[in-house]
């Protein structure tokens, strides 16, 4: 038990101040960051459900907020946050199964998850606006 951490060659927690940024470090931080974001976004989901159950006036109030500039920005951020956490969460499940630990693959997956989240988010918004146009 006297082996130093360096000798054991195990990865340490990312220390933001002293280490060069890497894709794997950024994706790990993003996972936590988006997790907190999703928790906050859940408040919006609750508000939406309550307003829908309460009546047209309450729903109009909610709709007014989410269709405002700030509301759209928050909603877009929530979509992006949810998408990233979904992609990277699946990767976490692979890790829990003891898979995908190689260095090169980890870097590739980090970029893939960021890219996938952006594509999914844009897809959701394009389809959403198309639905609004059709409605």
């Amino acid at each position, binding site marked *: 038990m006297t082996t130093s951490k360096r000798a054991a060659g195990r990865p340490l927690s990312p220390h933001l101040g002293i280490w060069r940024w890497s894709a794997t470090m950024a994706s790990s931080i993003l996972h936590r960051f988006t997790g*907190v974001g999703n928790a906050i976004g859940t408040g919006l989901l609750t508000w939406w459900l309550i307003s829908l159950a309460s009546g047209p006036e309450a729903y109009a109030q909610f709709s007014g907020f989410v269709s405002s500039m700030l509301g759209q920005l928050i909603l877009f951020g929530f979509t992006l946050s949810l998408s990233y956490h979904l992609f990277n969460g699946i990767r*976490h499940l692979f890790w829990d199964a003891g898979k995908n630990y190689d260095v090169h693959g980890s870097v590739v997956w980090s970029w893939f998850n960021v890219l996938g989240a952006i594509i999914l988010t844009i897809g959701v918004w394009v389809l959403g606006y198309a*639905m609004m146009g059709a409605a």
Partner: protein
Amino acid sequence: MGLRTPLSRVRGLGSAKQGTHHWILQRATAIALVPLTLFFLATMVSMAGMPYETARAFMSQPLITFCFALLIVAGLWHAKIGLGEVVADYIQTEGARVFLLLLINFLAFGLAAASLLAVLRLYVTG
């Protein structure tokens, strides 16, 4: 450290008597949330621009309300554990930590109760 053997520590038989409960629940809710999140995104897309009466009718369908109930429980449970982990990692002052953990738990249960009641009302009243 101390005098305990590594085996005793990994068995999780410390004063807490458990150590893997949160870990397993976080993964179980994560697995459930993969299809539920996709369902949520798909619902939001198909409901975009829906007027109030249509939206309400849409959200009163049994299968939709069932999935939303699952989403709320799995999502807030996952959030409760995840936020608790963040607080445990970064907040070192005991008073602040207890306060934030209580706040997270109250908020998670509060939002879950409010959302479930809303979903139930949509289901029952149509």
